[in-house]
């Protein structure tokens, strides 16, 4: 069984990578979870997981003359299989984003849940590919108008490719906000339920500085508890590994221009 979920936001600074890893760790209690840093232009999963010096990353797999295997870029940490992406600009420029399809297909064959940490902006083919490849999206929002506007936009992009919304996470929520009313109103426009509202937290910043996912660094924090509730509400859908892998491989994705 496998489901590929793109974790997307439409804008930066909402805590997308923190959320991807937190959801992943919470889901790992029940599932075999693989997290891929598919934000190849602004990779930062490595900094959240102590993998900044990883020898082989997704970047190596996206080169036309790649001699690394997918297995070489998978790191077992924090109960997750992690595929970080390097931050070399020249490697990013040389990368063929369409090779992500093959990488995802191979990873999908051997996991229960595949989380694709996706690009914040929607300005390129490589940024949109995770939305194309995923079964569903989790949209991470901050309770502000710019964030909701961008979240609605990302949802429409994903829907254009037949990728529906699995749920919405409101992150960095401050106490004084009328978040329950906002979440209820927002549910009218988003395809999935509000999975949780995550309080603004110093623990998330401290975890990032320590190079650890939030659920490893501050497992007893309110934010960590909220992410566990979110994972509990996310109903993972069964998929056949072979069919999912075939779908990725058969996706009609052209050569990059």
């Amino acid at each position, binding site marked *: 069984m496998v489901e590929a979920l793109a974790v997307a936001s439409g804008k930066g*600074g909402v805590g997308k990578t923190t959320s991807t890893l937190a959801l992943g760790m919470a889901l790992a209690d029940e599932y075999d979870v693989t997290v891929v840093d598919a934000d190849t232009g602004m990779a930062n999963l490595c900094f959240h997981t102590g993998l900044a010096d990883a020898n082989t990353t997704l970047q190596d797999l996206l080169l036309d003359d790649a001699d690394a295997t997918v297995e070489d870029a998978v790191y077992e940490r924090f109960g997750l299989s992690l595929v970080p992406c390097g931050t070399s600009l020249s490697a990013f420029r040389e990368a063929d984003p369409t090779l992500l399809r093959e990488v995802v297909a191979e990873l999908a064959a051997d996991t229960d849940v595949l989380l694709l940490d996706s690009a914040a902006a929607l300005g390129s*083919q490589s940024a*949109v590919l995770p939305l194309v490849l995923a079964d569903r999206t989790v949209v991470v929002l901050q309770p*502000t108008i710019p964030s909701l506007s961008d979240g*609605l936009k990302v949802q*429409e*992009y994903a*829907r254009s490719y037949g990728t529906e919304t699995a749920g919405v996470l409101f992150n960095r929520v401050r106490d004084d906000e009328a978040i329950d009313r*906002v979440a209820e109103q927002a549910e009218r426009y988003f395809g999935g339920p509000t999975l949780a509202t995550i309080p603004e937290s110093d623990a998330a910043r401290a975890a990032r500085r320590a190079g650890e996912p939030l659920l490893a660094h501050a497992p007893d924090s309110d934010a960590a508890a909220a992410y566990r509730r979110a994972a509990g509400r996310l109903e993972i859908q069964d998929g056949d590994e072979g069919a999912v892998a075939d779908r990725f491989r058969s996706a009609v994705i052209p050569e990059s*221009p």
Partner: protein
Amino acid sequence: MSETAVGELDLPRGTLVRSRVGVAGALEAALSRDLTGYARIEPDSLLADGDPGVLTFADGVPVAAYCERGAKGDSRGVDALAALAVPGPCTVELYELPAGSLDRVHEQPSFTVPPGAPAEELADDATLAERTRERAPEEATDRGGASALESFLEDEERIAAIQEEARAEAEKRAAEWGLDGELGE
């Protein structure tokens, strides 16, 4: 002192101290110079829905807002912020006024906004919002009630327009990127 009426928000005419494109820079400038006065915000968009608005300040911190546009005609307070939170550049003129000259205006609760809300909603700058909240008087941070975001979410027409525009853009880009074969039904 002459008055400049912006809708029902009657402001004394101030001295122009800054005129630039961008809301974030204007809010930053108002905060750093402890501005008492107002900002006139004019969206540069050629679209018809870019109507101007006004945001007032006391000692650098935003207090009241008014916009000539809104879901129900003109708008005030958090509804005005929601109306002004449109994508694209704005020209912002900052006007200074003598201390105390906006006290009467600032006593009208229907116009008031939470101190950090303009930075969050108009400039998308959480750090500036936090610094603004830290500078705000304690009673100002407790301004409760509905938020600008709730006002935005009530505007079904506006949200439908955002969705429609995004769908059209996604389809156009899919063709440019050669992904049109992946588009759903």
